[in-house]
């Protein structure tokens, strides 16, 4: 949905990091992306490959994506369940009083540098 915007922020964070730690080249960026973060991974990678060429420090950086499974908590029966499979309604007690525990993150886990 807004992959390009996220890529811009990712690039900015990485450039700040590179400046702070005197890094010349980043070889790999590992991101953890939640299953329901709304990020389309194929499109996201395309955006990255287009964008990284404009930044010397990022131009060699391959993007590696790890998925964080989405988990929802039901405040009625206090059980958790996989969000993507069951959605908003609790599969155990059918309550709608449910909350996303994790799965909408986009976290820079680590970078590999020269």
């Amino acid at each position, binding site marked *: *949905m*807004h992959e390009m*915007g996220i890529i811009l*922020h990712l690039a900015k964070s990485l450039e700040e990091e590179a400046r702070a730690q005197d890094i010349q080249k980043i070889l790999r960026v590992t991101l953890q992306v939640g299953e329901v973060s709304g990020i389309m991974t194929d499109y996201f990678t395309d955006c990255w490959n287009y964008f990284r060429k404009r930044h010397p420090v990022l131009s060699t950086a391959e993007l590696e994506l790890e998925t964080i499974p989405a988990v929802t908590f039901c405040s009625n029966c206090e059980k958790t369940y996989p969000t993507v499979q069951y959605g908003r309604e609790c599969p155990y007690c059918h309550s709608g009083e449910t909350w996303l525990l994790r799965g909408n993150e986009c976290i820079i886990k680590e*970078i*590999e*540098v020269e």
Partner: protein
Amino acid sequence: MRIIELKETVTASNDRDAEVLRGELKAKGTLLVNLMASPGAGKTTLLERIIRDMDSDVDAVRIEKLGAKAVQAHTGGMCHMDAGMTRTALDELGADHFDLVVLENVGNLICPAEFDTGAQKRVMLLSVPEGDDKPLKYPLMFSVSDVLILTKTDVAPYFDFDFDACKRRARQLNPRIEIFEVSAKTGAGFDAWEEWLARAILENKGN
């Protein structure tokens, strides 16, 4: 070759910029409101109305008649405003002496919710024709907003908009959200919402 662990969200650098901007605005006594909604929900119409009303009603607000100062902010084709773009727009506005600045965000219920602009308050609009199911479809926007304004209430008789269901869904996502119902066409509901806004301006000045 070495590996550096970062473990921070992609938006972390924007969040830091936003926090700095928020601090600077607070020091100047400027309340920055981030106004978010779908295209056509009535953001500009709502602003026109409050500029007219508050000029005569609230002394503390220095808005010069309908000629309130405005700048067109540019996102460079992005789907949202971030803290850096907001700072650029504020610099252009020369916002050293304002009590209230409203950032009219890009018409979109998804992306603007994810990016902190440095505003002290986030206000979202949902217009009656859009439907009462929107909290279910765009939960993040309702979760991060301080205020939900239901707009175009004058057309409610022509739509099946369930106000109670909409408010219940919004409060389930965000128990602290303040909800107002307004019609910029008739002026209905503006007193309560403008009172909230005036209070927020005063609170921001530390009164």
